[in-house]
């Protein structure tokens, strides 16, 4: 506790204007920035996978399984920052047992379980079922057992059964797209529905969250596709890269349009809070919002992607350009989450002053914990790829 008090003492020195005394402590920090970032990647990766399945976008078919596994790895990690941030994580199960139905946050457990159990796990199972049966027949030792267990005892490899798998995958994807929209739109609603906070309170918030999620998901799959192609030493599928880059560019343009609409709307309405929000944007958030989110995270990637798509540069250079654009997009989207979560707490609800956020290095809410929570999904993904290789089938075919 003495550490917290010292921290608050230091914060107090840097307050400008007037803030309510209870506002000196910032309540949501790095972990709550990571949470919407990670869930966004889940929703985005899944929506990309769904494009393949529902709209039959053949060019990106080779990323379908990778996108699904990415979504699963990030979804498993998604509740951890939330849990770690709670004052009493041991009571978190109360959200399931005695949810307060009028609370947006109480719905998290249900939205999450629906998405994990009914959409993602089922889709992956049907997608891999025939392979699981085959692998459990071919392999020996522990892995044989693992695949047998994962196949849930299923043994049927007949054409009829495989046809049913395809139908099931299709049907689940149809349910899955609105579910993915729900998952991340819902995260946006958690912030957008807080009327006490003029930075958050916006009906556009769920939509902005959703499109930024799609942007980050596509960019992540592009990055993973690039890296895995490189490590597997297979010939890069340029059509796939081009298609992913196009999708990323269009999603970025929609995302930028929505953000611009939000900005213009706020400026035009010019409500009571506009002065303090303007101060916030030009001082505390200048680097993270204007430079990182807008310039480096949105405009530069759009330009890079456009150059990559529409100019005659060698394929290798093109891929590097796409890679850099996707990397910048990740930084930009993380910044977007930062600007929402941290930015929304840097001004007082008295609309008369600004406060500061100082990240700690150690501790539950510290930088190291944040980095660990961001690395974890990649470790999970690596394990998932080892168990459920997303490429064998395509290479064989």
């Amino acid at each position, binding site marked *: 506790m003495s550490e917290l008090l010292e921290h*608050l003492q230091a914060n107090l020195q840097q307050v400008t204007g007037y803030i309510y005394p*209870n506002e000196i402590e910032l309540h949501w920090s790095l972990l709550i920035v990571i949470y919407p970032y990670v869930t966004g990647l889940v929703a985005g990766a899944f929506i990309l996978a769904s494009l393949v399945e529902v709209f039959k976008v053949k060019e990106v078919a080779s990323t379908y399984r990778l996108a699904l596994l990415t979504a699963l790895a990030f979804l498993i990690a998604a509740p951890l920052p939330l849990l770690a941030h709670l004052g*009493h994580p041991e009571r978190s199960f109360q*959200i399931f047992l005695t949810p*307060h139905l009028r*609370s947006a946050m109480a719905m*998290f457990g249900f939205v999450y379980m629906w998405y994990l159990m009914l959409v993602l796990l089922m889709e992956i199972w049907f997608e891999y079922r025939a392979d699981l049966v085959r692998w459990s027949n071919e392999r020996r030792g522990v892995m044989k057992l693992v695949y047998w267990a994962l196949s849930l005892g299923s043994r049927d490899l007949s054409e009829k059964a495989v046809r049913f798998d395809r139908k099931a995958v299709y049907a689940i994807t149809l349910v899955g797209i609105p579910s993915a929209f729900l998952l991340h739109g819902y995260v946006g609603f958690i912030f957008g529905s*807080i*009327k*006490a906070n003029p930075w958050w309170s916006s009906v556009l918030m769920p939509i902005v969250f959703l499109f930024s999620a799609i942007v980050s998901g596509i960019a992540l799959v592009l990055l993973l596709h690039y890296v895995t192609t490189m490590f597997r030493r297979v010939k890069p599928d340029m059509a796939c890269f081009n298609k992913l880059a196009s999708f990323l560019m269009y999603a970025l343009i929609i995302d930028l349009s929505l953000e611009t609409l939000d900005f213009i709307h706020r400026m035009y309405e010019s409500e009571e809070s506009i002065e303090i929000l303007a101060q916030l944007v030009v001082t505390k958030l200048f680097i993270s919002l204007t430079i990182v989110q807008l310039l480096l995270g949105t405009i530069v990637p759009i330009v890079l992607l456009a150059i990559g798509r529409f100019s005659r540069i060698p394929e290798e250079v093109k891929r590097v350009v796409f890679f850099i654009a996707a990397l910048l997009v990740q930084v930009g989207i993380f910044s977007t989450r930062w600007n929402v979560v941290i930015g929304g707490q840097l001004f007082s609800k008295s609309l008369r002053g600004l406060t500061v956020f100082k990240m700690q290095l150690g501790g539950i809410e510290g930088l190291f914990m944040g980095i660990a929570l961001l690395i974890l999904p990649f470790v999970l993904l690596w394990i998932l790829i080892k168990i459920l290789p997303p490429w064998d089938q395509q290479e064989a075919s």
Partner: protein
Amino acid sequence: MSKDLKRREFLARFIQLPCAAMVFGAVGTGDNKAAAEGPYRAEDHLYAMGIQVDRCIGCGLCAEACKNENNVLKEPYFFRTWIERYSIMMDGEAEVDSPRGGIGGFPPLEEGSEVMRSFFVPKLCNQCDKPPCVQVCPVGATFKTEDGVILVDESYCIGCRYCVQACPYGARYIDPRTLTADKCTFCYQRITKGLLPACVEVCPTQTRVFGELGTRSSPLHRMKRQSSIQVLKPAMNTEPKVLYSDLDGEVR
């Protein structure tokens, strides 16, 4: 032998009975007394607080008494109630301060500052009739009682801090000892015994008026009848039960 025992038993009971009767009698008397006063019935009350802004002298005794009565941490980052000083400058700009929540009073205004007028505004949980904090609590740990007071069940709160974000008035904080949400309860432990909240009790100028909303004979009703009444941030539609008389438009 058995006859002896029986006799002993009989004698023992002979002594025990009147003792037991005395004990039960005493308890019985207690019960009757309680019954005469009646147990506390939340549904019979609807509490509210009036703040007569023009009476406040910014002495900070209310905030201090609150911390003592409710075992609130003494550090100046945790307040169930605090006092703000508004200084309206000659150019019309308002400057606000609340050093240590007003505990210990306020330092003199800076020399040479062109203050047109200045006044103090006590703040606390508004015990909203439509409380956003209750709406957002994912487990129902914060709730509205039948007497209109918003309480937090410390043993149930998961410490997600959503309620702190949802409160438009900055009235909530997280107690670092319990890692649960805390806020003003109108001194629930006192008002349910018929006592006044600590801040009301110690206020030397009767700035704070505590009472029932439904009762016509209360001082609160008198204040409502005689002054113009405002609430904080009415556009939030939270319907506060902390009512301010003669509140300046600058106060948020």
